[in-house]
């Protein structure tokens, strides 16, 4: 007597789903399917950074893709790989996604060769976001170091879209050199139209630089902080977090009103690959936006 297990008996599960859905929990979805995008515009910002404007080709997918300030997406460059990139555009811009990308690795290097019209894909959005509603009717300090301005553009655009709901908004921006300063073309607009109190500083400057020179914490002397009514958003290299957050802590801003966006190596964005884990926390699912209290409790976080 012999018998076999019929194939289709065990193999009952076949997973087909028409539209990828990242917004609702469902038993099974095409977790690795990207939304195909066309690179509509490439803006060269510095030698190292470019701003890419992408449009999701499929209108349905374009409608599904809605994000909150501070979230990130996984950018797929087929044949090269996938990288986590923070979304740098306004949440109200439903037509285009803007990504500010530094040439730093294998995938981003390949992307720098891409021309307008090329097709890439995005998965997401993933992660936590800045609590913009909670900050309404308060003062906001945005502190960006270097490329840290990229994830801060989304909350800044949000504030600009809802400018009447926020009180004083300060933005402190520091880079190593003047040539590395990003989005300088928007500074006037932010200052004059959106009434953002923008201060910039560089660490090392050539002789012709007329602005300030020094560390970013020196900019705090230029602004008055009402510590009971102020929220802070900080993004930059790990070493900057410590100095800036310590300073703000001394100024009396409660730790749960300081928000930082952490950088980690992410391979999946879905809390599976563990590459971005800090202690028991997944930066991709529980982060990248954390309040400073959580960061203090996460060992090795910064």
């Amino acid at each position, binding site marked *: 007597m*012999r018998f076999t297990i019929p194939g289709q008996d065990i193999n009952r599960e076949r997973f087909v789903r028409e539209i990828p859905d990242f917004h609702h929990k469902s038993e099974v979805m095409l977790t690795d399917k990207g939304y195909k995008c066309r690179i509509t515009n490439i803006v060269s910002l510095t030698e190292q950074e470019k701003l890419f404007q992408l449009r999701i080709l499929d209108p349905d997918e374009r409608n599904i893709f809605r994000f909150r300030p501070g979230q990130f997406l996984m950018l797929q460059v*087929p044949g090269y790989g*996938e990288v986590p990139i923070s979304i740098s555009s306004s949440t109200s811009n439903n037509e285009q996604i803007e990504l500010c990308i530094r040439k730093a690795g294998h995938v981003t290097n390949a992307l720098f060769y891409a021309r307008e019209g090329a097709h890439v894909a995005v998965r997401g959005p993933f992660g936590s976001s800045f609590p913009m509603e909670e900050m309404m009717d308060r003062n906001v300090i945005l502190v960006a170091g270097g490329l840290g301005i990229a994830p801060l553009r989304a909350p800044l655009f949000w504030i600009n879209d809802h400018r009447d709901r926020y009180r004083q908004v300060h933005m402190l921006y520091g880079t190593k050199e003047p040539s590395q300063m990003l989005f300088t073309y928007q500074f006037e607009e932010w200052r004059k139209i959106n009434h953002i109190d923008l201060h910039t500083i560089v660490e090392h400057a050539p002789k012709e630089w007329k602005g300030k020179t020094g560390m970013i914490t020196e900019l705090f002397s230029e602004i008055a902080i009402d510590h009971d009514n102020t929220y802070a958003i900080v993004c930059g290299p790990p070493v900057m977090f410590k100095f800036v957050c310590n300073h703000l802590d001394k100024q009396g801003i409660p730790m749960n009103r300081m928000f930082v966006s952490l950088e980690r190596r992410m391979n999946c964005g879905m809390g599976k690959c563990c590459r971005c884990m800090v202690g028991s926390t997944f930066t991709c699912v529980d982060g990248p936006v954390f309040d400073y209290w959580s960061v203090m409790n996460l060992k090795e976080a910064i």
Partner: protein
Amino acid sequence: MIYKVIAKPEFEKFIDTLVSGETLSYGPRHVDTDKQGEPIYQFREVNTVSDIAFDYTATYSSAKHFLLPFRENLSRFTFTDDDWEQDIGYEVKPIILIGLRPYDISAINILDSVLLNGHFPSPYYLARRKNTFIIGMDHLPLPDCFSKSLNHHTVSHGFNLFCSDIGDKYYLSINSSKAYNYLKEFRVEDPSYDDDCKLIERRKLIKQSFKTDVEVTGLPSFLDIEFDSPIWTKWGDKCLNCGTCAMVCPTCYCYNIEDRPDTDLQGSSRQKQLYSCNLVDFAEVAGGHNFRPKNGDRLKYRYYHHYLGFAENANQPICVGCNRCGRACLANINPKDVINDLRMEKESCMICVSQSPDKT
């Protein structure tokens, strides 16, 4: 669950029928002998019952690789002149796994809780899991196995059929209708009072056979407090960063994703590759900053994830206590020694505690 007993010759007939069919079957096989002359077992394809070493001690690799292969295609890209198409498929062939020990089944249950929960259940894993027929078997542990300390010396779910050796019969726990249907064709009986007694004795014997005990009570808190303990440097200095522990671990699931273009550049596969948190570049980000630059940092992270981090997220440590990592480690690092080392540090302070003024 339905319980039955089956005579051993009849059981062999049942397994033989199962494995000689068309469905791919894997079971423990004696594949080699190590330098001490001890047999080496691995889960390999089996075609007749005589291929299977039912009395195997432990396999080098775990059974997780049938659900989480070392390399797995996540999607395929095909390139045309100025465009590409992405193709994703989850279809897998059904397989039968025979002879899994309770801790291996527990490990699969733990993987289920990681990969099938949360906002993004893994369809790749789910497809494999749903198409895997698991037959578990109990066993007498190796002297260095500490699965009892983590309560994984028995298992109550996650298998289709579980067999306990009660002398000339197997006591079967039938946990799926599929297993029940297959067994219909064979001579199985309801367990008698005698069989029940033998099963209880067998379980007692197994429980008492554990020679190694690792105290894990309160371990998450110990680990949290001892984050800066010098023992991490001490053990980190021994670690070779080879990642072997994660490869043989039945629950390690961390991975890396990379695109592998075809040699003709007409297409590319996005592949997932099992990784290890002990490898140097695990936490390195673009630009070269490494969040865990030292050996000790990475070793510590592994222990934190196994005994603290995962315990916080899923209410149980991820370790099942099989000690495969300890056996495979080239630098002789094993969880028992590391955890005991960490605990001893604290326990030595009991003197101070007992002398503290509040005590009197």
